[in-house]
């Protein structure tokens, strides 16, 4: 699997380069700094969220509450800082902790009570949105201070926006956690074959609990960075971002049945989707057509993952879907 996935990520990178080349030909302004910085932000945000959201997916579940939780996190951090006057560092830590707790709560219902993950997290998406409305009073709040906080999202280091660094750090850490630690291996094992994992001494329940907790924590971080960058928070921020994250991860090689996935692949997938949307913008394709394209992209990605459009892949991996059959 490791070798397969590595080749997969390289192939994905090539697709990305080809895509960039095509877009540059179609519209030379593609490579301009102004254009790229438009794209970079959405890639960063999705990258940050993907770094945690991949864990529930690898265990065979899913986390659909990403958007609402991110929005809520922004609202909370603003509330802590500007309504309660808490130090911004403490506020961020508190917010991330709350995100982790919410993830833990979801994970508990999924792992211990055995409710299907998409129901649990879809319901969470709804009620967290409501909570966000209540806490923010339905208003769109502007964040004007503290300056240090705003610098997180808007500041630059070596002429690159901070969020890029944050995203890269999180992606690298998450990829490391997934591929180079016992925990990561256990997550993959639980997704690949829960029974065999259990017989090998792994506790699937606690692995799942931790996965959803991680997802909640990274989503909160993403929400905080979003709030800092856009300098505004409102309940409907990042709504439905889950679909983008899912698309990115699926293109990046994740299987919705679990057992497979790559954070770096997810990042590449996010870039591919972002560039496609950007390309549509540059080609002056009207906004309504964009979701049509992204929707088709995800169906295409699913088809490819199942081996329908790439004849070689079909024969290769006798994945656990077939083993379980």
């Amino acid at each position, binding site marked *: 699997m*490791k070798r397969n996935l590595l080749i997969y990520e390289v192939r994905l990178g090539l697709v990305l380069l080809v895509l960039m080349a095509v877009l540059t030909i179609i519209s030379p302004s593609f490579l301009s700094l102004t254009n790229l910085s438009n794209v970079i932000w959405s890639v960063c945000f999705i990258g940050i969220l993907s770094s945690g959201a991949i864990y529930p997916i690898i265990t065979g579940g899913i986390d659909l509450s990403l958007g609402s939780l991110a929005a809520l996190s922004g609202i909370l951090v603003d509330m802590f800082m500007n309504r309660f006057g808490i130090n911004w560092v403490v506020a961020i830590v508190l917010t991330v902790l709350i995100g982790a707790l919410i993830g833990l709560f979801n994970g508990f219902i999924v792992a211990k009570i055995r409710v299907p993950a998409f129901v649990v997290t879809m319901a969470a998406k709804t009620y967290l949105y409501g909570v966000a409305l209540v806490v923010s009073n339905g208003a769109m709040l502007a964040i004007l201070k503290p300056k240090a906080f705003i610098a997180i999202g808007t500041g630059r280091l070596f002429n690159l926006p901070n969020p890029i660094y944050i995203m890269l750090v999180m992606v690298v850490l998450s990829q490391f956690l997934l591929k180079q*630690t*016992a*925990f990561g*291996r256990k997550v993959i094992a639980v997704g*690949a074959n829960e029974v*065999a994992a259990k017989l090998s*001494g792994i506790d699937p329940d606690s692995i799942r609990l931790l996965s959803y907790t991680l997802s909640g924590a990274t989503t909160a971080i993403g929400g905080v960075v979003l709030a800092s960058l856009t300098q505004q928070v409102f309940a409907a921020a990042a709504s439905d971002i889950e679909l983008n994250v899912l698309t990115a991860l699926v293109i990046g090689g994740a299987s919705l049945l679990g*057992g497979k996935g790559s954070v770096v692949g997810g990042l590449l997938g996010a870039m591919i989707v972002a560039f496609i949307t950007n390309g549509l913008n540059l080609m002056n394709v009207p906004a309504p057509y964009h979701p049509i394209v992204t929707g088709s992209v995800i169906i295409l990605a699913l088809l490819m993952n199942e081996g329908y459009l790439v004849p070689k892949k079909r024969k290769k991996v006798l994945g*656990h879907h077939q083993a379980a059959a």
Partner: protein
Amino acid sequence: METEGKSDILLECRKIVKSYNGPIVLEDVNFSVKRGEIHSLVGENGAGKSTLVKIITGAIERNSGDILFKGQALPLQYSRKYAENLGIAVIYQELSLIPGMTVAQNIFLSREPLYPHTRIINKRKMNAMAQELIDRYQFPLKPSDIIDNISIAQRQLVEILKALSGNASLMIMDEPTSSLTRTEVEMLFKIIHTLKSEGISVLYISHRMEEVYALSDRVTVLRDGKLVSVLEKEQINPAEIIRLMIGHKLEENAVYHNLPKIEGRKPVLEVEGLTSVGKFTDISFTLHEGEVLGIGGLVGSGRTELVRALYGIDPYNKGIIRYLGKPWVPSVHASIRSGIGFIPEERRIQGILAPLTIKRNISITNFDRIAPRGVIKNKQEKQLAIDGIRLVNVKPPDPEVVVGNLSGGNQQKVGLAKWLVRSLKLIFIDEPTVGIDVGTKEEIYGHIRTLAEQGVSVILVSSDLPELTRLSDRVLILRKGRIIKEFKECVLTSEKILRAASGILEEYDEA
């Protein structure tokens, strides 16, 4: 009333051949069932019984050979529905009923009586028809019972009615009594005789000799994919059947064991009165250092349940276990940490992580070695994989190959390797060589023997009798959850084991 020879044969199979890209599973098998006859099909695991049945019911295609049903030749390939329409019905252990629906609905699924010229089900008529069938056979059922709420025995009856409502003339039953109580088994026998009196033939497949003996008009014995014998009623006796099932060639597999080497060794596992309600009862034994303890018995006798409880996967109700002399409450985590390993049956479903590489499969039980503080040490992991591969001789010897792509034998070797790289004191092995080629089987036997020589204790569960006799120092026979015999003989033969497992007492021994 006897009519002339040919017309009383309901099903005739001639020279049936089936092979799966190489291994021949059925070789020139001739098989026939007469009208209104109870015919049993017996043979060891792997003899070809279920393949033959699948061919008859249309679930799989035969390579060559003729099948005639009611005198009509059947095509090489046909669907189960086609067979059903002809009158061939089969009742498997995993019943194919629809939960949430009633008895009547299940009986008439896809054949419900409709109001004329509409697609609306005439429920009253359906329930009445169901009631009619129930009354005719006097089954303890109501048409409105919901499948989820009735017992397994009752569900089996529903399956029978389903077959009868489709006008089955051949009813195939595959191990129908495995989940039934004694009373329910008696009831089933009565029903089978009723069917026979109505001219319906029953093809009965079972491991249980006493049932075969009690029911059958004729018995067909298969061995290694070939027809061995067809016994007529007077010739049927359990000991004879077993002898035919096993054959004479296995006298070579009688092994002489040196008992004294076991005596005086330290006990590794002491089990007293272990009971898990519904699974096994009052199991007691002592396992010594370096001993291979075989556990034999028919399918469903509780062997797997026992080792799972000992390893710590499933709980048990009563009993005491001592490991290395100290009181022991098993849990998977504690077992692994304390030098105990486990190779489950159903290697593909339980034993391996198919989408992952050999390296990752071997690491999975060894995080304490390659990731003592949580972070994987790549060099160590690779070395461990190489060591493991070398220990069991996996082909191809490449740690990055996906296990799902390996042959069955090599997959099992990987499953073994992840334990062999640890310092084990005890390992449970459940059906290690199912579906594995002869060469690899011998390799695995070698590893098991080597383990024992190194002082590791092995508990081996197996339905492969030569395997059991060759490897074990001692053999315990389980039957219906209890230990009924312990073989410490110097000469263990497959025949003795199977006889004991089938509950055949000394009175049937040949003079």
